[in-house]
């Protein structure tokens, strides 16, 4: 019924005129939605198929049968360090996100709230780094990290990514709008700077922290260039590097490859489904302020 009116209950004009407009909107939406879902369907379909189903001369959209035994096969295949790569991605995702939130939120708070003579100059030095996308500095960063002996190590994957000027900037903007009264009250209660921050500011900013955390985790999980540069040993591959390597390896079965890809996106799809509210808020916030 919502599709048919030209004005809503308060007599306000609607952009769509008439039933035909409403039907057209839904038709376009459904067609677009199907197009967006096709790649997901192919991922799952190919994950549970045999290689013959995928590369057979008579390709069918629907699979002939589902091969659930592909799942244990993938995790038992010694040629595919899937479990190890997923674990690395998880460690990098969780530690990298926690570390970045800690380091950048403290800096953002200091820049927004702690009076210091040179704070402005420092803020400009932080802003200047926003102009240099981290992807562009991968050559010198690799040189630096390799001279620290961190190639193929988890700290090499995690530490350089912690110091995001952009995240610190977002936190600063957020803390500028944080109600000062709460901090004043905490001070009068006898809390110091740390106490005020940990016991008043952080707990009252959970929504913002969650939004940034979700986005940072997604970015870390999907990162490819830096893990590819730094992960030279198989033991330090993230799941993205592993997948990319399998694509060119001849020994891997194609259905295993697709299953590995499906497994690799599952954590994020779950994050998307359960934390969508934070995610949408976060994207809207970071995107517009960016």
């Amino acid at each position: 019924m919502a599709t048919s009116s030209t004005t809503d209950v308060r007599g306000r004009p609607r952009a769509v005129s008439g039933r035909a407009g409403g039907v057209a909107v839904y038709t376009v939406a459904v067609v677009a939605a199907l197009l967006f879902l096709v790649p997901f369907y192919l991922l799952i379909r190919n994950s549970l198929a045999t290689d013959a189903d995928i590369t057979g001369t008579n390709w069918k959209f629907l699979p002939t049968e589902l091969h659930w035994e592909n799942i244990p096969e993938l995790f038992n295949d010694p040629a595919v360090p899937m479990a190890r790569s997923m674990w690395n991605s998880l460690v990098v995702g969780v530690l990298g996100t926690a570390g970045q939130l800690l380091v950048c939120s403290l800096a953002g708070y200091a820049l927004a709230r702690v009076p210091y003579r040179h704070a402005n100059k420092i803020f400009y030095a932080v802003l200047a780094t926003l102009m240099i996308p981290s992807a562009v500095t991968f050559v010198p960063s690799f040189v630096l990290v390799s001279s620290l002996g961190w190639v193929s190590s988890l700290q090499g994957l995690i530490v350089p990514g912690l110091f995001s000027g952009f995240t610190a900037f977002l936190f600063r903007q957020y803390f500028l709008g944080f109600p000062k009264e709460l901090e004043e009250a905490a001070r009068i209660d006898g809390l110091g700077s740390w106490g005020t921050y940990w016991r008043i500011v952080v707990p009252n900013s959970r929504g913002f922290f969650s939004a940034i955390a979700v986005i940072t985790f997604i970015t870390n999980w999907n990162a490819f260039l830096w893990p590819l540069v730094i992960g030279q040993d198989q033991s330090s591959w993230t799941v993205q590097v592993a997948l990319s390597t399998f694509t060119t390896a001849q020994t891997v079965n194609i259905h295993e490859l697709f299953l590995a890809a499906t497994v690799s996106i599952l954590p994020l799809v779950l994050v998307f489904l359960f934390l969508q509210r934070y995610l949408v808020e976060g994207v809207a916030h970071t995107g517009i302020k960016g």
Partner: protein
Amino acid sequence: MTTITTGGARPGATASPGPAAKAKARRDGHGMRGSTRTFWLFAGPFLAGLLLFVYVPVGWSFYLSLFQAQNTVTPTKFVGLDNYADILTEGPFTDSLWTFTLFALIVVPLTFVLALALALLVHRIRVARAFFRSVFFIPTACSYVVASMVWKLSIFNGVRFGLANTVLGWFGIEPVAWIGTVSPPWYWLVLVTVRLWLQLGFYMILFLAALQQIPKELYEAAWTDGARPGRQTFRHITLPQLRTTSVAVILLLLIAAYQAFDEFYNLLPNTPYARPPLVYLYYTALGQGQDFGHGSAGALVLSALITMVTLLQGRIFGFGKADS
């Protein structure tokens, strides 16, 4: 929810005259040294990291770019600006800049228009809006690696069983070698569609958030002034109201296009064509030759270009003004 013990503050509050005096008293009590220490305690780790992992690499990069530095990061042969001259005249790097320019010219407007269209679509939908929003947004959860795999091995596989070729087959069209041929350059279709699928949802969310902030009164006023809903209100109300978001979106799209690496690396083998700057830099600096001199020079040229584009766009569109 956290309970804040404002109540406990009251007895103390009666002793101090007002909030301004309170703040002053606190500043005086801690002294300049106290708050300076707090500043460095809070921001110190971040600033040290920024120095070590951003400023030092950029500086080192500049140093390396002035030397002949193959397989070594402590070079001895100073070559001045020769590396810059080489990459700016020799071919592959300038080719990569043209690849980027072409890529950006296709991807930026296309993503902008389609993301805005999707946002308007979802905004207008009343029933199952959350469902459609999720469907368009969820590809953002996929990595370029995974999406490239689906595109390369399943949809745009150059053989008959690829999805695209199967569909073409229904119309009696011969299979197309999507990524295996330079003429015609069908690989552009593959590169562009994979990026569209992955990033449209993200930008749709930005537009959607902005659309929801447009005051409804504007449309009502336009209605009473005789503006017809549809093209007129879109042009005179919706688009101007989306200005800040539009500028942000274009800037983000340009920077994202500049940083294109994942799909090029995963879709195309190390081809001489269709290599964006980051792919060129990757193979130059970390490939066989480990040519850090030319690689660093390229990275700095690229940084300079991005900075220029950002500043130029800021100048033209007044980026960030609405923010402050």
